[in-house]
């Protein structure tokens, strides 16, 4: 037959050819993504034009014509008389937007908590740090431990804690986090940088110095515990311990630092809390509490036990069926009416509980979606191996179910993060609320656009960060099935 004769190679001997130029390289990319057909080409050109038009109109306002220098009202012309944004406005009110009315001399507490959180989260979220850098060598621990003690003594003796002390604190944190040599050097450098841009990391108030010393002492103790834990308990593993510490110890430390009023720290009433700080307190509480609560509720809803199931269904449907604003109103106005005389919870705590339960009801349904996506065979295989209910859930079902619903979980987190702005309605001044509050200052009337753009940017950074992290996590957990 002719087909056999025209074949260039014997059957089974055909070599691999390189693909045509339209399939690979820059040309291939352009062709496939931008100009694959006439309608697509038109759309490409039209969107490019639109994008250019937007940028040409927005960029000058944002950057080129904007007012950057100056420290007071005189730096910018009045609204209507200027072309660009007045970022001096943000500079002037930055402290309020970040911390609300939290007293200046106590801001080190909030900053310390931020750094503690970042230091704890980075090794957990980004598992690329090589193992040998994760646990600090014992020699380093001894040196830094010694410096720490010297720093504390020096700080307390000289009365006003110096920035020396703050550097020792960072070194200690590095050891506590356990990065070892690399970042034990890195943290003091960061501390010095933060000091130079005037971010307080140590108290300026003599009244706070005892509390600060206690705080540092607790860090030393924790560091020692982490360093020698594997000798006491051979199955000690560094990362789970760090996670547990962030979940249990860190909130307690935050409570001690933020609220004050105990063990050498002056008290700060919650009405003074505000700005991005308050937003983070509410959002992180909701996020951290809603996931475990949601998992428990989702499992309960699928339980064979009628009472457990009924309780979970009622809880979920009740909280999910009510708007968050209603929940917050109930928490702030109705709840105190039901309490006996003299019993009074802080308004912030009531709002936190409301947000927590509200978010966990949503989370429960997201998790349930994941549980339903797990094939029956997985449950059966776990059962057949003799795993108990909790073990099969914890080791087999939930790791897979939660992985499937990462987009849904992060979606809920992002929604929750933005919903926290509703606390304005019960008189708590979060990031957005603070922007609104400062825009009513008589000297700065008419600068609200800058405030809102800044707040929008702040929210976007956090939400986009969560979104990217969820994509990273999905890729990382991809194990090649399906």
């Amino acid at each position: 037959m002719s087909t056999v004769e025209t074949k260039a190679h014997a059957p089974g001997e055909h070599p691999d050819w390189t693909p045509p130029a339209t399939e690979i390289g820059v040309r291939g990319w352009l062709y496939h993504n931008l100009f694959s057909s006439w309608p697509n080409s038109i759309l490409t050109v039209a969107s490019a034009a639109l994008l250019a038009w937007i940028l040409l109109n927005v960029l000058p306002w944002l950057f080129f014509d904007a007012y950057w220098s100056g420290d007071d009202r005189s730096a910018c012309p009045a609204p209507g008389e200027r072309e660009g944004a007045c970022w001096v406005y943000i500079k002037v009110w930055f402290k309020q937007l970040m911390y609300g009315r939290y007293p200046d001399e106590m801001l080190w507490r909030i900053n310390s908590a931020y750094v503690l959180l970042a230091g704890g989260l980075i090794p957990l979220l980004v598992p690329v740090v090589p193992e040998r850098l994760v646990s600090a060598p014992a020699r380093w621990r001894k040196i830094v431990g010694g410096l720490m003690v010297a720093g504390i003594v020096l700080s307390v003796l000289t009365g006003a804690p110096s920035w020396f002390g703050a550097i020792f604190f960072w070194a200690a944190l590095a050891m506590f986090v356990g990065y070892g040599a690399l970042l034990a050097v890195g943290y003091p450098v960061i501390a010095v940088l933060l000091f130079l841009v005037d971010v307080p990391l140590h108290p300026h108030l003599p009244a706070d110095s005892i509390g600060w010393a206690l705080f540092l002492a607790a860090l030393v103790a924790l560091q020692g515990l982490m360093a020698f834990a594997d000798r006491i308990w051979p199955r000690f593993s560094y990362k789970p311990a760090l996670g547990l510490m962030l979940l249990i110890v860190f909130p307690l430390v935050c409570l001690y630092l933020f609220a004050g009023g105990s063990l050498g720290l002056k008290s700060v009433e919650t009405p003074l809390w505000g700005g991005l700080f308050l937003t983070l307190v509410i959002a992180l509480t909701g996020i951290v509490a809603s996931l475990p609560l949601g998992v428990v509720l989702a499992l309960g809803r699928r339980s064979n036990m009628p009472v457990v199931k009924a309780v979970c269904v009622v809880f979920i449907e009740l909280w999910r069926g009510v708007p968050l604003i209603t929940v917050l109103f109930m928490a702030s106005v109705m709840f105190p009416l039901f309490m006996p005389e003299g019993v009074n919870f802080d308004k912030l705590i009531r709002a936190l509980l409301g947000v927590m339960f509200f978010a966990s009801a949503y989370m429960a349904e997201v998790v349930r979606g994941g549980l339903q996506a797990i094939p029956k065979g997985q449950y059966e295989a776990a059962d057949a191996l003799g795993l108990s209910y909790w073990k099969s859930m914890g080791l087999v079902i939930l790791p897979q179910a939660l992985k499937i619903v990462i987009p849904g979980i992060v979606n809920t987190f992002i929604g929750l993060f933005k919903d926290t702005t509703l606390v304005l309605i019960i008189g708590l001044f979060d990031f957005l609320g603070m922007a609104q509050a400062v825009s009513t200052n008589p000297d700065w009337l008419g600068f609200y656009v800058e405030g809102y753009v800044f707040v929008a940017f702040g929210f976007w950074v956090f939400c986009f960060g969560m979104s990217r992290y969820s994509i990273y996590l999905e890729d990382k957990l991809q194990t090649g099935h399906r």
Partner: protein
Amino acid sequence: MSDNFAVEGLEQPTAKMEISDEVMIQIAGMHKWYGQFHVLKDINLTVNKGERIVVCGPSGSGKSTMIRCINRLEEHQQGQIIVEGTELTGDLKHIEIIRRDVGMVFQHFNLFPHLTVLDNLTLAPIWVRKTPREEAEEIAMKLLERVKIPEQAKKFPGQLSGGQQQRVAIARSLCMNPKIMLFDEPTSALDPEMIKEVLDVMIELAKEGMTMLVVTHEMGFAKTVANRVIFMDGGEIIEQNEPQEFFNNPQHGRTKLFLSQILAH
């Protein structure tokens, strides 16, 4: 006639496979319903230690359901199932004891896709038997060598072929050191080229004296390995006999029809 049943190139068992008098499984007057539907009717079956039983029958005949009752993946409503002297009831303790000693291999492997092959194998020993991790991993590697895929230990199940996955699934069950192995159509989801590698592992297991209940359509396997073949239809055990007798001299009309149909091609 006998050559008709043998899978080409299938390893023939050589060692003499002993069957002792010790009773491993005793099923008496067992019934099961799905709602109104009577799936299993008056099942009576005794399995001795070292027996290799092949269960066959048309789909929907209840053969899978029957062996799934033995480790309580399905609940029976009437009658008695006693596994190694422990009766299966609603009592979770009893179920736990039985599941530790009864391994199961599924049609669709049901490996845990989020864990590596090695972690699939060590999960139950570590968490159920409380074996130290190093020891569990050592045992797991030995078993992976036995099923001839030690080099895949660090891979995820999704990266393996069907035949390799099923061999991992067998090794996973063996990690719990079971006294009885249940196979629920272990080769039905496999390409023809991969069936042999799984059957070879099962034959090895039979040679070592494992008590096995196998639901399968591999008549070659039944012929060469089984010491008893059970035919089920409509939720009942219709006929059971030694393989030679079962294939050459079926007693029941339904059995004859079934055999003529599966051997037609």
